């Protein structure tokens, strides 16, 4: 070995400012995101929920409900593709919490906590890396739709904007699941609780059916459900290339979720870390 390898720097020289600067925090978060992507590369089975699920769900729901809801599969596609997209990508955001919990239980987290890095970086990195998962889910859902004959009137631009909107929303929601992940005792618990939140939110919306077919009391909920706004916004963007008020409502809901859950997730995380 070379002496240089192990010789410690004089300790006064290695002292860093007590607080990590913003630039360093961002760079450390990206490194943690890079770590997340490396993990995906070594265990690609992690992507199964964002690759096969969109294909299976799209095929299944379209052929199952197409005739009943819209009279034909082709007519149902503009309605169902945005719905499936919202549901799939939001479901994918649950994994953030589950994986965060698993990660925090492992020895490697002790090392992250003992490094002189911004304590928020592992959390921020995890959320950042997950946007790649949302991107995969979004792309595959759109491709499946196109293969099945969906021809979005909004053109390429409308579809890309619609995809971005969904990814932003999933990222916002992942703060909720990150919070549950941080405070939960086990990954199984995170999974259970998250799906309890998720199922009513995604199914009690306009994602799969026309709202006016629902009983009145349910319509009331569906109308205020942010997922409905998201689905409507995606439909107008992708099918017509129109930016509607629903885009605003959706982004507002996403912002509200982040404003509430990001601070409490971060605080609980720092308290544990």
């Amino acid at each position, binding site marked *: *070995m*070379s*002496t240089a*390898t*192990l*010789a*410690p*720097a*004089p*300790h006064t020289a*290695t*002292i*860093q*400012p*007590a*607080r*990590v600067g913003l630039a*360093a925090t961002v*760079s*450390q978060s990206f*490194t*943690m995101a*890079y*770590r997340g992507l*490396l*993990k995906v590369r*070594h*265990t690609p089975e992690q992507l199964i929920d964002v690759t096969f699920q969109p294909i299976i769900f799209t095929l299944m729901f379209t052929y199952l409900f197409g005739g009943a809801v819209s009279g034909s599969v082709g007519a149902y596609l503009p309605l169902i593709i945005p719905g499936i997209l919202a549901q799939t990508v939001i479901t994918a955001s649950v994994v953030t919490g589950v994986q965060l919990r698993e990660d925090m*239980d*492992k*020895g*490697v*987290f*002790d*090392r*992250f*906590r*003992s*490094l*002189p*890095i911004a304590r928020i*970086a592992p959390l921020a990195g995890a959320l950042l890396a997950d946007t790649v998962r949302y991107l995969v889910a979004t792309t595959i859902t759109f491709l499946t739709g196109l293969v099945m004959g969906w021809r979005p009137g909004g053109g390429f631009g409308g579809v890309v904007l619609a995809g971005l909107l969904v990814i932003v929303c999933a990222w916002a929601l992942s703060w909720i699941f990150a919070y549950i992940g941080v405070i939960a*005792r086990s990954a199984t618990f995170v999974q259970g609780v998250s799906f309890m939140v998720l199922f009513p939110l995604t199914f009690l919306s306009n994602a799969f059916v026309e709202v006016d077919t629902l009983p009145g009391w349910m319509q009331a909920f569906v109308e205020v459900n942010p997922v409905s706004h998201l689905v409507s916004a995606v439909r107008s963007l992708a099918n017509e290339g129109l930016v509607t008020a629903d885009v605003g409502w959706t982004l507002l809901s996403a912002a509200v979720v982040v404003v509430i859950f990001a601070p409490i997730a971060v605080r609980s995380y720092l308290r544990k870390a």
Partner: protein
Amino acid sequence: MNTNAIEAQGLVKIFGDNRAVDGVDLTVRTGTVYGVLGPNGAGKTTTIRMLATLLRPDGGEARIFGHDIAREGAAVRSLIGVTGQYASVDETLSATENLVVFGRLLGLSARAARAKSAELLEEFSLTDAARRPLRNYSGGMRRRLDLAASLIARPPLIFLDEPTTGLDPRTRNQMWDTIRRLVADGSTVLLTTQYLDEADQLADRIAVIDRGTVVAEGTADELKATVGAQSLQVGLADADDLGTALSLVQQVFGAAGAVAPEGLRVTVPVPHAEAVADLLVRFRDAGVPIDSVSLDKPTLDEVFLNLTGHAASDDAPAAGSPENTRNDTEKVTA
């Protein structure tokens, strides 16, 4: 340098109603190896985790190179490297990827992180396995990588939590050599161990801890002097002779013998070898039949019997495997 690497006073950590660490004082001089010796569940890991800012102490205070662990956590973290009892590296990643990620987090450029990683893998003889995911690594390889990861930033103080537990003798010797080199290069090392032998080989000073408190502190020689360089074990043929045997031991050796749980074996530190012959003669004269006699190097058990009056393994939680113990701590901290 007159700053001590570690100064801890009255550290306390309570999990529920278990005082895992109950008033630990430690002073570690810069440039030395300090051994913390104790059985499973004695509070070694908890102490390290508090000093490394991974756990908040419930009482007491500690300074790392003069920086308070509670108030100056970030400064402390920039001065330490921690190698846990449970490899603190990413299982799914390769050795290179692990080191590059840690290097990048510590502010190295991508190129510098790669170079550092290659250098450390070479140093720890892991180059051949550099690209393999860690789940295929042996325990020894994992520990070496873990230690390598702690050295990226060249921290002046390194915590090693049971660095050789579960390693085969050859790998253990390699690890010892590495630790010696670290210290020769000026690092300060605090290591915990269950093995007296290891503390003896490596540490300049040793603290023996039991049930969360330091029961003895000193150099290896000082500690061994408390149990004698060797210890004599006498197996009695008849438990009824125990009283006589103990009083003979007291007369000849001037020290109280410790009785093994089954009441047939007396263990006593040997002040000098001739005393053994004297004792055996006294046994024969007194008509105390003997089943077996053995002379042993002092073990952790003897240090413990001597210092605490109970065996080292008495309070080990269900002879917990590392995984079990870790899970237990996790549950209480969660």
